[in-house]
């Protein structure tokens, strides 16, 4: 894995609302993520982890601070430019799947390709390949209502990877799934990271899910409270025991 810098945050701040009712969700976050990392962002609800995720995914704009994605200053981009950045470099997986209803798995996976000007044949080919990667080749004609939660999330993952993005953002990807399906989905993400070199940034509140990541960042009250490498170091074990939850 190269140590090329993917993300650099400096003093990232996000305020919701104005005046007395305003609420500071992020209070100056500094963070660096290298290309090819698999990062889990953890924290209790209201900690600001989802806000951080949305900012990293260029779905939202910071109030203050700087965000460099592959050297691009995201805070200087306008709405359309951020759309184009998402289109060409990012993939998203949501807790609620966010698939188009009454739309076949194949067409859902094709959706990002429609905005990238591929021909019909190319779209079909790429979407079929992505569905094969998530082992859903036999379900390409099924609509979300005809699929289980795990299958829907796999369609969503296929949609996220069909454009071969540098980075995948996953917001509670297993939040709506049972434990068996959770294992399947996490295995899939781990493989995408290990075999295809896709950087993955994932928000979760489940320890078992976070355990799949190689780096775990804890967010608390709008700041990063801990940032550590997972799995191999004793330090991780210790800090886990110290975790108040």
């Amino acid at each position, binding site marked *: 894995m190269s140590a090329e810098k993917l993300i650099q945050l400096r003093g990232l701040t996000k305020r919701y609302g104005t005046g007395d009712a305003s609420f500071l969700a992020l209070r100056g976050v500094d963070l660096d993520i290298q290309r090819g990392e698999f990062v889990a962002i953890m924290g209790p609800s209201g900690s600001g982890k989802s806000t951080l995720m*949305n900012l990293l*995914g260029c*779905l*939202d*704009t910071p109030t203050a601070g700087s965000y460099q994605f592959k050297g691009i200053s995201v805070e200087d981009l306008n*709405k*359309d430019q951020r*759309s*184009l*950045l*998402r*289109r*060409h470099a*990012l993939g*998203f997986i*949501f807790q609620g799947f*966010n*698939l*188009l*209803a*009454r*739309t076949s798995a194949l*067409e859902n996976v094709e*959706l*990002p390709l*429609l*905005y*990238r*000007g591929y021909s019909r044949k190319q779209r079909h080919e790429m979407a079929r390949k992505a569905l094969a990667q998530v082992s859903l080749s036999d379900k390409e004609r099924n609509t979300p209502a005809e699929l289980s939660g795990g299958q829907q999330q796999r369609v969503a993952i296929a*949609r996220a990877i069909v*454009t071969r993005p540098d980075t995948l953002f996953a917001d509670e990807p297993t939040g709506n799934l049972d434990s068996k399906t959770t294992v399947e989905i996490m295995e899939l993400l781990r493989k995408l990271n290990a075999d295809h070199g896709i950087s993955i940034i994932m928000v979760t509140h489940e320890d078992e899910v976070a355990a799949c990541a190689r780096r775990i960042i804890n967010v608390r009250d709008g700041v990063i409270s801990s940032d550590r490498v997972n799995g191999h170091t004793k330090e991780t074990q210790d800090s886990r025991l110290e975790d108040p939850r």
Partner: protein
Amino acid sequence: MIAMFFNALLIAIREIRRNLTRSFLTVIGIVIGVAAVITMVTLGRGATETVKQQISKMGNNLLVLRPGQGWGGGGAPQFSIQDVDAVRDQVPGIASVAPFVVNNSSVIYQDQNRTFDIQGTTPNYFAIANWQIGTGRFFTEAEVIESAPVCVIGETIRKELFGEGVDPVGCKIRVKSLTLGVIGVTRVKGQTGFGDDLDDNVITPYTTVIHRLSGRQGGRNFNQVMISGEQGYPTASIVADVAALMRERRKITANKEDDFNVFDSQQLAEVISSSTKVMTSLLGWVAAVSLLVGGIGIMNIMLVSVTERTREIGIRLAIGARAREVLLQFLVEAVTLSCIGGVTGIALAYGLCSLGAEKVGAPFIFDPKINLIAFVFSAAIGILFGFMPARRAASLDPIEALRHE
């Protein structure tokens, strides 16, 4: 740019197919609105046109001089042939004048016996009342002078006395003791706006009626004088001149009312067509209400689907669609649905109009203006309510659109 448009078209068509119920309900609203407006206005126009045609059937710039006030006559003296000549010679702007006497009698042909109007007049009448010859010929001035026992009959009489497909020219019919040779059949005029059959007349020289049928009535034999004005000459001035002449000839003193009246077909036409215009505009308003109701229907469908659509917009934005691409998709979708609805509505209106035209006996007149107005209005509603919520949603950050409840 063109690629972006085709892309939007592709996505829009997918969305329309995917949401068939919603698309169908939207289209239905437009169809009903467009069809209602076009049908009502077209039928109204047709009715107005029918009235105009029927008035013109009565004659060209026709004026009728009658004894008494109103329809009855009320014992006022009729008109003499001298009155007819005076009108012809002294009133400016007159194209033609014909004396007219009507005698209601039973007409017999072989074993058929029916009662019809026997009209005595001169050949001028054919032009004044706009008669066309079907078969045979009209009678001549010479035949009027001779009191010739000849007649021209209407299509209704031909049918009722002679039966379908029989040429009556050369046959003889009997009216009381008088035998008349049929020399022609007039072309069909149909009915007046009041339901009177115009084709049940026996037209014969007035001399024949006076000398052989009804007997002399002291020289005042005519219960009507038919007058046609010159094309473009104001009929109101002819009416005034004829009235002045008649007052003089009938020695009516200044403080007495007229004991005759001059009926002006053009005036009648104006009165009737202005009342049908009121009807047409009333129908137009009814139609406008249906258009509005259709529009509200579209609005409802669009508003109901706003939540789902806002999430859809959120998804599209999140995976990298630009706001303008999403908007173009929604615009194309709304325009496509509106066009489908508009075209279907116009087609439906055509069906209804041709059906209705048959029922009310009104001709079917195509009016591109009303088609366009109805179409544009419905399309505007469809586009406005399809597009406005989309515009709001597309202006949101994707994450807000995704959270929309």
